């Protein structure tokens, strides 16, 4: 018996509720911990505390792109549609965190630089990443056939992920050509622990989101497979 791209996989493993609650509680804890333990920054005062959520958001954005890359390659290789659904779930969550990163960056930039938007290398390349995510999700919404959607978005996802470091590097070089900005985001050791804890908390939350989204996508597919079984029933058993 040969398998094919609509092989049924049975029901997905549901995301456990304790993971969601745990992630939320841990997240709340790390916020309090980070704020309480860190002294006001010498130059920026309490403004600096936005970095506790900014950097973890950025980290989650990149991790999500990594998942899109790996899942897309897996889909093209094995034609396992679960990988396609995982890539889609990860891209949605990644786009959300990418948007958060941008907003936090702007919130930070306004008091620091006096403008909401500066063509800072990191802000700019994050914006480009956001646009790549948007393109990926737009493609998914414009293609109905599941097989075609899977193949196309996998190809677009892989190329987009390849492009991430390239965008990063080229924007950085483009910036430094004009003016070399002193980087105010050097990390003092006293902030490091709260920061790492936040990275862990954000990662947990992202895992929970992706898992839930993936689960929903699996149920949508399971419904389609049920329709398939009904349609095929009786002929080839």
């Amino acid at each position: 018996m040969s398998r094919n791209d609509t092989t049924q996989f049975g029901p997905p493993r549901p995301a456990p509720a304790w993971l969601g609650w745990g992630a939320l509680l841990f997240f709340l804890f790390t916020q309090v911990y980070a704020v309480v333990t860190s002294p006001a920054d010498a130059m920026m005062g309490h403004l600096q505390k936005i970095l506790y959520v900014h950097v973890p958001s950025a980290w989650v954005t990149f991790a999500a792109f990594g998942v899109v890359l790996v899942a897309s390659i897996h889909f093209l290789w094995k034609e396992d549609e679960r990988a396609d659904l995982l890539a889609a779930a990860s891209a949605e969550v990644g786009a959300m965190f990418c948007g958060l990163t941008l907003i936090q960056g702007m919130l930070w930039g306004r008091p620091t630089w006096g403008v909401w938007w500066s063509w800072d290398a990191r802000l700019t390349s994050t914006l480009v990443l956001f646009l790549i995510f948007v393109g990926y999700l737009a493609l998914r919404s414009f293609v109905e056939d599941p097989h075609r959607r899977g193949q196309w978005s996998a190809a677009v996802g892989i190329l987009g992920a390849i492009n991430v470091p390239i965008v990063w590097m080229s924007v950085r070089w483009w910036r430094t050509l004009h003016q070399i900005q002193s980087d105010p985001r050097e990390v003092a050791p006293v902030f490091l622990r709260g920061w790492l804890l936040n990275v862990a908390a954000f990662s947990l939350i992202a895992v929970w989101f992706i898992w839930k989204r993936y689960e929903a996508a699996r149920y949508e597919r399971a419904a389609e497979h049920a329709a398939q079984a009904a349609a095929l029933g009786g002929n080839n058993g």
Partner: protein
Amino acid sequence: MTSAAPLQTRQLALDARGVARRFGARWILRGVNLQVQAGEMVGLLGHNGCGKSTFMRIVATLLKPSAGDCFVYGANVKTEGDDVRHHVGFFSHIPGLYDDLTARENLAFAATMLGFPAADIDAALERVGLTHVTHERVRGFSAGMQRRLSLARLILQRPRLLLLDEPYNNLDVAGIALMNSFIRELNAAGGAAVVVLHDLVPAQGVLDRTVIIRDGRVHEPRPGDFGHDGASPQAITLPAGAAGIS
């Protein structure tokens, strides 16, 4: 992953096993089983929208089946598309020609793409009766002329499995005779064919048997399935000449 075809599959020109295909949530094909021997000519009937064309496109590797397996001379349409494409010639209502190229240029392009750059294009054009428009652009061609030009492309290719989707549309009596002579010629050379039809009359004397697609599956036809003057399947599977066209 290349799945090895079962042994008996290798003798078959076409071996479709439970081929299913959906568009969105709608299932067009629900498990088509059809075996065609080398040298066999099979007619495929069914109502509009029953999935005949979808099935043909799956065999031609233009669509992937949503479920099931399909082999052409032992090559899997899902995983060995290039091998399948060496065997099949697909002829449909879509001309697949370039409007801004001349008849000859279209055929020369097709010949190169098929891997026969030295094919005799002028002979093919002569056979389909398009010599007088060799150097005219396809844009000005009538539907029937475009059909003939597509047929000339098949003549260059001489496929081992002919997939004809309503081949007689837009063809005049001479065109139908031309088509039938080409089918018989390939048949004599051991080729097989699957012919989608809505009207059995033009194909009289060409087909070995007919099947019908209903509810997304293949069935043996019942007498009522043929709309023409109560013609029975037996009547249309008579050998050539026994039931002449009036």
